[in-house]
């Protein structure tokens, strides 16, 4: 597993965090900065060994703030980069997640979530950061977050996270949890040629940002990366299309907030993925992440007893799959939302579906422990009574 190959093609029995590390290298990641934290450490542990073998750089930062800043700096040199952490680290990174959004910096942030608040329980993989990754930095903004349910998806969605970051110049979260990160399972890594890899558009020329559109394009502006004579001006302050600070023109402020949000929402159909397995007669289980595995098991149990149970898994949590939730809400009569927390996405789901169906929430019997499918089935039976 530690040879110098970029793509470890083959069938592996692999820990989710290692699959994430291999996904990063396969996607072309050349720079990773990280700080040790349970349950994400195996990602940086593996990359510290693997990256130099493939010509990349690993930096063990003095804290998570430094890690994300170094990753953003590296991104501006035109390289693909990543940082990996857990909830406490995300909390520390929040200010500079905002800078990455404001400067339209491609960035992959892996959050292997753990039970919180505060120090909480490092080794228990409760997804407590589902809203904070989207709303934790100050100001108005839009990121992308993908929720893997298995070690296989720790690989697949890491590759996809890089592609989305490069395509849209935006921070993309791999919003995993300790269960997906520490689980060992079969992971198929395809041959390099069959991987779809996207690289960012780089500006084509000129040494004067005043004659280029470097930011705030209605779509995605080509990136004026450093070191090539573009004389880019990059600032987290409110800026215009050329990157120049502007604190006086209201219409510039409006564009500074709106354009980076709209460029994501405009492409929501390309970004949002859900896995739908339901029919109109079903009671629908709506989930994301590792809880989806319990939901599928519960659906199987239910169907074996002649109860029509369907599932909808949000692979993309941000931007929020509003239309997809609305659609299922308007088709089924009963919906049960399953989350391994106190219901972080439940209000968002209710907002889209509660007008059209009966909707309820179910956490696991013990928070942090994965939902028992039998328990889900018992709740389904109550709902249809």
């Amino acid at each position, binding site marked *: 597993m530690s040879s110098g190959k970029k793509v470890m093609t083959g069938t592996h029995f692999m820990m989710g965090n290692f699959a994430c590390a291999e996904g990063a290298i396969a996607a072309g990641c050349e720079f990773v900065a990280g700080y040790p934290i349970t349950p994400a450490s195996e990602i940086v542990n593996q990359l510290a060994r693997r990256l130099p073998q493939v010509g990349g750089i690993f930096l063990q930062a003095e804290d998570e703030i430094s890690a994300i800043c170094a990753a953003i700096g590296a991104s501006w040199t035109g390289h693909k980069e990543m940082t990996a952490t857990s909830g406490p680290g995300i909390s520390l990174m929040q200010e500079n997640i905002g800078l990455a959004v404001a400067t339209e910096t491609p960035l992959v942030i892996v959050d292997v979530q753990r039970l919180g608040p505060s120090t909480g329980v490092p080794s228990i993989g409760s997804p407590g950061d589902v809203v904070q990754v989207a709303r934790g930095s100050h100001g108005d903004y839009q990121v992308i977050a993908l929720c893997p349910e298995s070690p296989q998806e720790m690989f697949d969605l890491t590759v996809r996270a890089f592609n989305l970051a490069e395509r849209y110049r935006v921070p993309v979260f791999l919003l995993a949890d300790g269960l997906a990160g520490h689980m060992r399972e079969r992971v198929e890594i395809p041959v390099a040629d069959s991987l779809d890899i996207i690289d960012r558009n780089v500006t084509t020329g000129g040494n004067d940002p005043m004659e280029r559109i470097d930011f705030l394009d209605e779509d995605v502006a080509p990136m004026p990366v450093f070191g090539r004579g*573009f004389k880019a001006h*990059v600032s987290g302050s409110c800026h215009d299309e050329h990157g120049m600070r502007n604190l006086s023109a209201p219409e510039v402020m409006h564009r500074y907030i709106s354009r980076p949000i709209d460029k994501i929402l405009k492409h929501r159909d390309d970004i949002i993925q859900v896995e739908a397995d339901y029919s109109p007669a079903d009671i629908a289980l709506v989930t994301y992440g590792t809880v989806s595995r319990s939901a599928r098991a519960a659906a199987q149990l239910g169907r074996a007893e002649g109860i029509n149970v369907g599932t909808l898994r949000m692979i993309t949590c941000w931007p929020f799959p509003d239309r997809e939730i609305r659609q299922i809400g308007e088709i089924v009569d009963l919906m049960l939302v399953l989350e391994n927390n106190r219901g972080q996405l439940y209000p968002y789901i209710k907002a889209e579906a509660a007008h059209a169906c009966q909707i309820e929430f179910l956490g696991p019997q013990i928070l942090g422990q994965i939902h028992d499918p039998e328990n889900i089935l018992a709740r389904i039976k109550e709902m249809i009574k």
Partner: protein
Amino acid sequence: MSISTHPFRKYMRHHITRTTNCPGCGNGIIIQAILRSIEELEMEMDDFVFVSGIGCASWIPSPLFAADTLHTTHGRPIPFATGVKLSLPEKNVLVASGDGDLAAIGGNHLIHAARRNIDLTVILVNNGIYGMTGGQTAPTTPRGVATITSPYGSLEHAFDICPMVVAAGASYVARWTTYHPRQMTRSIKKAIQKKGFALVEAISQCPVQFGRAAKLGKAVDMLKYYKNNSIRIKKARGLDEEALKGKIVVGEFVNVEKAELTSELARLKEEVMEV
């Protein structure tokens, strides 16, 4: 009437016609020292990436310098610069920021960059106060000076930044005041050329905030104060604490060669990369 162009105008973005500096600010002297260093070293602006944080001194390169410039969050220019340098080792990465940015909120990054001995040039502009936000106490404010947040006089001891950065492991450390632009320029040139972490602390007048708080008068009075109270490091080494009270120790604190991080990483790659 003939109009002459400043010889360093060529290093500045053409559309920038004014700075954010207050009248009498030391930033102008430091801007000249940086640009004169680049000219005398016969380097181009495209040989550099400039990184700054938040605060008055962070406006030195951004948006003024016609180069790649990255204006970051408060306290964090050094980690951003670390990421730029590691991924673009052939460029000179120069950080210009203030004492509040680099020694208060960003103090941890400063000592760790020095420890790593990564090839950055840091110009730390020390005006002894938070200027932009209205004159609050900084970790560099001398004990006893009254500021807006220490109206009865600061009770805390001030950081002595240069010895701290030396102790953390930097390859090159020097301190000058804005009264010493030639010496400062020589040190900035050495800092740029040094393969390793290099810091030049520029003690700089803020007549608007610090000058008022410390009752040091206007910009020229502050420069005179620097002239009369600076002492060369060689001379200072023979003096005790009492004799050095109120003195600004200037000169080179360290100038050594030692293993540098980007070079070490390049060597590591050669060793472990499989062809």
